[in-house]
């Protein structure tokens, strides 16, 4: 039986196991929306296309499944750009479907036409402009395959209106044939053997865990690895939840706002094993002074990540779990020499413990003004262990990373690579749709929140019980912090002077709004929010000029930290 392009699209989504899409209708996707009610696919109508993409992203981060977003051509498509770039930088599996003007009009500067394939070329893993309805099923199959395999990423399908209307016989391909795309999953055995030798020879080893460990759900393998060789573990922002911060070997986050002891450990290590991390500049600081005494083993599924920023002594391309399991296997074969390892590295762990004791992660508590770190600690204390936390970008994001102590995979949704303000609320929304039984919380700043605050409407419409915690300092706090420290307190354009009544804003949308002005009120507000059904916005009036510390100034080495301001 023949089906139209829009029916083929929806049938294919079903074939891929998609039951939820995030989107926004418009002229060139009207056919898809007309057919949508005939399919068992839940559509979440966001209030902005950017939010639809972030929601699909949050859904993917929380569930591990491919997120799907739909937008119309032209402005709808260009509104997806920030969302796509965010997902690309953090390697999130996603398929974005944009409508396009009919093929005869492409290139004519037609109404609501934008060359979205061209615009997104450098921020997608791959993209397609579908010119013939006969190619559509194959392209969708390929798009999902590309999005979720290898190093995951967003794939864009631009679907002209006439292709949606045209019809053909629907046959969903059973397999994917892409001769140019064959990710390496299996780690090279010789490289693994070399890695085992280097690990046995190391006396000051550190495991450096990145977002790849989150993407490949390698947490259990990492714990086994770290415990076998008794090596301290540092994580990036993206790798945080992959290795439990409650684990005695965890040193928390490294880099610009990392812990003192994580940065000291990396700087003084003699072997750094990078696992699904990419040596981002926020991690390395001054690159010439990064882990200067260490040999570096770099395990990653993406060969382009290896030797991009730093010298690497031993590259291993492969899927993390495969490679770690092989290394563990090889080490266990070594018997006595691996059993002797914890003793040989005991002095190193004592040194690391001394650094930790010297400058633990801490802040100055207050009885008179709300400290943001206190709010975060309280949220952690009062939520279930497996609560999913999304953040926006800025100071609140770093405080969350420093003080939430994540311990469960896929519970920390944050824009690490692109650093997208306005990501958290829609991401939390998407995560809540994907995980209806979990507690989802967006920790936000007053600046970031206003970049996608319209999504309160979506939360209320679908009665998604996301709790929002705005740490309100009436500043664009992170930029203000830089201005304070490096620009002589010239607070150019960072005070957000207009005192927004966020409680009223929440109420205007039909959500519950709560406010804490004083430290005594913090716990009550959080308890009340968690006990209230549906979406709740909590506003915390925090210490206006609290800083994120420690901090590595731009251009400094990561052991040259400013510890307090």
């Amino acid at each position, binding site marked *: 039986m023949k089906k139209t392009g829009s029916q083929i699209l929806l049938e294919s989504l079903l074939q891929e196991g998609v039951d939820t899409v995030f989107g926004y209708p418009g002229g060139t996707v009207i056919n898809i929306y007309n057919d949508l009610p005939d399919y068992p696919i839940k559509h979440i109508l966001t209030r902005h296309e950017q939010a639809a993409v972030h929601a699909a992203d949050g859904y993917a981060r929380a569930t591990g499944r491919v997120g799907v977003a739909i937008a119309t051509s032209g402005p709808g498509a260009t509104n997806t750009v920030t969302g796509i770039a965010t997902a690309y930088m953090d390697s999130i599996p996603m398929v974005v479907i944009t409508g396009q003007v009919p093929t005869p009009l492409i290139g004519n500067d037609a109404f609501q036409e934008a060359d979205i*394939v*061209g615009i997104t*070329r*450098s921020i997608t*893993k*791959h*993209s397609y*402009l579908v*010119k013939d309805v006969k190619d559509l099923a194959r392209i969708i199959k390929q798009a999902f395959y*590309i999005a979720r395999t290898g190093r995951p990423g967003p794939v864009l399908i631009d679907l002209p209106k006439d292709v949606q209307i045209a019809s053909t016989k629907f046959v969903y391909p059973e397999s994917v044939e*892409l*001769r*140019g*795309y064959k990710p390496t999953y299996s780690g090279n055995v010789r490289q693994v053997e070399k890695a085992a030798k280097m690990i046995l020879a190391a006396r000051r080893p550190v495991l450096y865990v990145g977002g790849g460990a989150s993407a490949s759900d390698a947490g259990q393998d990492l714990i086994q690895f770290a415990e076998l060789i008794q090596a301290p573990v540092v994580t990036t922002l993206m790798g945080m939840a992959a290795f439990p911060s409650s684990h005695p070997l965890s040193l928390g986050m490294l880099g610009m706002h990392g812990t003192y002891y994580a940065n000291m450990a990396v700087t003084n290590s003699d072997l750094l094993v990078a696992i699904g991390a990419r040596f981002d500049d926020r991690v390395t600081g001054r690159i010439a002074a990064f882990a200067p005494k260490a040999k570096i083993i770099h395990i990653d599924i*993406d*060969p*382009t990540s*290896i*030797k*991009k920023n730093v*010298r690497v002594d031993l590259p291993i391309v492969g899927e993390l779990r495969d490679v770690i399991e092989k290394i563990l296997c090889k080490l266990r074969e070594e018997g006595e020499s691996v059993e002797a390892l914890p003793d040989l590295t005991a002095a190193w762990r004592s040194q690391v413990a001394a650094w930790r004791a010297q400058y633990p992660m801490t802040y100055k508590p207050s009885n008179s003004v709300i400290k943001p770190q206190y709010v975060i600690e309280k949220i952690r204390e009062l939520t279930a262990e497996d609560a999913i936390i999304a953040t926006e970008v800025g100071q609140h994001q770093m405080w969350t990373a420093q003080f939430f102590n994540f311990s469960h995979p896929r519970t920390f949704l944050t824009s690490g690579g692109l650093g997208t303000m306005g990501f958290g609320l829609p991401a939390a929304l998407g995560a809540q749709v994907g995980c209806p039984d979990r507690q989802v919380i967006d920790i936000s700043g007053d600046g970031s929140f206003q970049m996608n605050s319209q999504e309160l409407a979506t939360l209320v419409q679908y009665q998604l019980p996301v709790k929002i915690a705005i740490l309100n300092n009436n500043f664009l706090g992170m930029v203000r912090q830089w201005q304070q420290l490096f620009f002589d307190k010239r607070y150019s354009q960072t005070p957000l002077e207009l005192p927004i009544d966020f409680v009223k804003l929440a109420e205007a949308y039909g959500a519950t709004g709560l406010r804490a002005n004083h430290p005594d009120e913090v716990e009550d507000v959080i308890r009340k929010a968690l006990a209230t059904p549906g979406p709740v916005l909590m506003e915390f009036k925090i210490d206006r000029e609290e800083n994120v510390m420690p901090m590595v100034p731009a251009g400094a080495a990561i052991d040259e930290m400013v510890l307090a301001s």
Partner: protein
Amino acid sequence: MVSHVAKHTISVMVENEFGVLTRVAGLFSGRGFNIESLSVAPTLDDSISRMTIVTSGDDRILEQITKQLNKLIDTIKVIDFTDTEYVERELALIKVLATDDTRAEILRIVDIFRGNVVDVTARSYTMEITGAPGKIQAVVELLKPIGIQELVRSGPVVLGRGAKGWVG
């Protein structure tokens, strides 16, 4: 780390599909890599195009270029000819203004470099020259004082020496 900037010739087999050229070109511009020349045409299998790219950079940049090219979904094979034996040829079409005084000299140069005259008028010769880029450059230098009206170079194409070859 010693960084030695050198010229490199890379062949890239790609799916002969819409937008592939912009993906490759965009990769170079987006990551700040140089393209000195690029030529592209279908192979025996017309679903595959072969690009020959001349680029420059140190070893680290070249490694990134080949890795990034391989990462493109449409890239089927990347061959870096650095440190290998290969045959390199470029075609140039050169239009030279000819006067009674220079006609014989122009033809002599064409002859020495085994070129062919492919178009002739009372005032000009257009010739084709093939060879390694150095040879083309030599012809150009010789003809410059005589008066080059127009010049087009194809950019080099290369194949590895020996019996081995890449079959799609």
